[in-house]
């Protein structure tokens, strides 16, 4: 568990069940056929969040499993999303200390290149295999994730703050 830059409050470790539920919801969202490219990739966003906040539980293995399931669910090439998510998680976790030092918008700015890389990786794989070029708007999915990030991370952090207050005791007591 990494500390937030604000020292006055203490974060509790997230509950595994909460992690799973949020990942499942994000996965469900990504399976809804929405038509249009600017919809955020919620699986990628939520996965990145937990990879940063709970690297003990959510890591490369989770990214791989989630990616394969997304690929099957969306009828994409098997392994493309897995490859992309694995790299996002790895790179995010390597930079976690620096990224978490910033606030929501700063984090989004630091993470945006990783998300763009994830989409670029998938595009590269598919174009090599003879797929259609989806147009530059394809990368809009990463931009919308970045725009959503401050709100999303605040929302996902909220239960941990609440838990700290309900206990009335921090981890130091």
């Amino acid at each position, binding site marked *: 568990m990494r500390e937030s830059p604000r020292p006055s409050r203490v974060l509790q470790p997230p509950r595994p069940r909460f992690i799973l539920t949020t990942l499942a919801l994000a996965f469900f969202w990504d399976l809804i056929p929405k038509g249009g490219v600017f919809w955020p990739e919620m699986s990628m966003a939520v996965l990145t969040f937990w990879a940063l906040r709970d690297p003990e539980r959510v890591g490369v293995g989770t990214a791989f499993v989630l990616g394969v399931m997304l690929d099957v669910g969306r009828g994409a*090439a098997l392994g493309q999303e897995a490859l992309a998510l694995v*790299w996002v998680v790895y790179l995010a976790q390597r930079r976690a200390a620096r990224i978490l030092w910033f606030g929501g918008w700063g984090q989004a700015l630091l993470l945006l290149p990783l998300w763009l890389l994830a989409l670029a990786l998938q595009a590269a794989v598919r174009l090599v295999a003879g797929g259609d070029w989806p147009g530059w708007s394809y990368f809009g999915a990463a931009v919308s994730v970045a725009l959503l990030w401050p709100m999303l991370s605040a929302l996902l952090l909220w239960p941990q703050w609440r838990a700290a207050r309900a206990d009335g005791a921090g981890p130091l007591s």
Partner: protein
Amino acid sequence: MNSPLGASPNVPRFHRAMSPTQRLGLATLASVLLLVLDLRFGALGAVRDAVSVVLRPVQEAAHWPVKLATNGSIYFATLAEVQAENARLRRIELEDQLRAATLAALEAENAELRRLLGMSKRAELRTIGVEVLYDAPDPFSRRLVVDRGANAGVRLGLAVLDADGLVGQVTRIQPLVSEVTLITQKDHAVPVMVQRNGVRGVVYGLGDGYLELRHLLPETDVRLDDLLVTSGLDGLLPPGIPVARVVSVDAAVGSFSRIVARPVSFGERRRHLLVIEHVPAKEATVGGP
């Protein structure tokens, strides 16, 4: 809550066994292996099906918001019923239109074939009306998902038409839905002939909505506005279905001329399509499907 992450309890143990870089390497290797097997050899149908079995309920639930959105809100329940009725009628109308349009051509062709070959049974066309559910959520290909699958008799490779011509081919089937790859998909090939003179070639999707007629010598007689129809040489598509109209014939580049055609169908914008199965006369006599 039924979680999609069955394997995650094992992850922490996996963590400690290897360094992050090792884990990255292993996962990358596994992903690339999957990609090669899938894209290069198409060898993962079984894996896909196995995961699909688990995912299907989730997928079907995920389609609900879309269905709600297209049918209007619950407030308009009666309107939704009328729309469903209307959709059904339109499907029937489309089937009738197409039958009428192809009947004359089929009859003429059939009469000639029977005269030439002494065949006694005519080719049968079986049709299944389908409705487009949505564009496949994969931006790298041009595919539609339609509301009939293996349970309704849809099979791999069948032709999909709208009232104007060929839209695509069934490329993946599930029990309740199937996936149609459009002819405009990059490098999707359809064997065709020029309706005017019977010159045969193959059209390939260019990925930008147009098709290119390839493998023709420069002196081949193809003109602007020629209609290309299926030649039926692949044994899957029935012959004579309109595919595309030639929109440009460029002088020879190298040893081939570049011939570009525009599809005659409006498949990407139509909601109701028709899957047709071409049952050759010989099979039809041996015993129907």
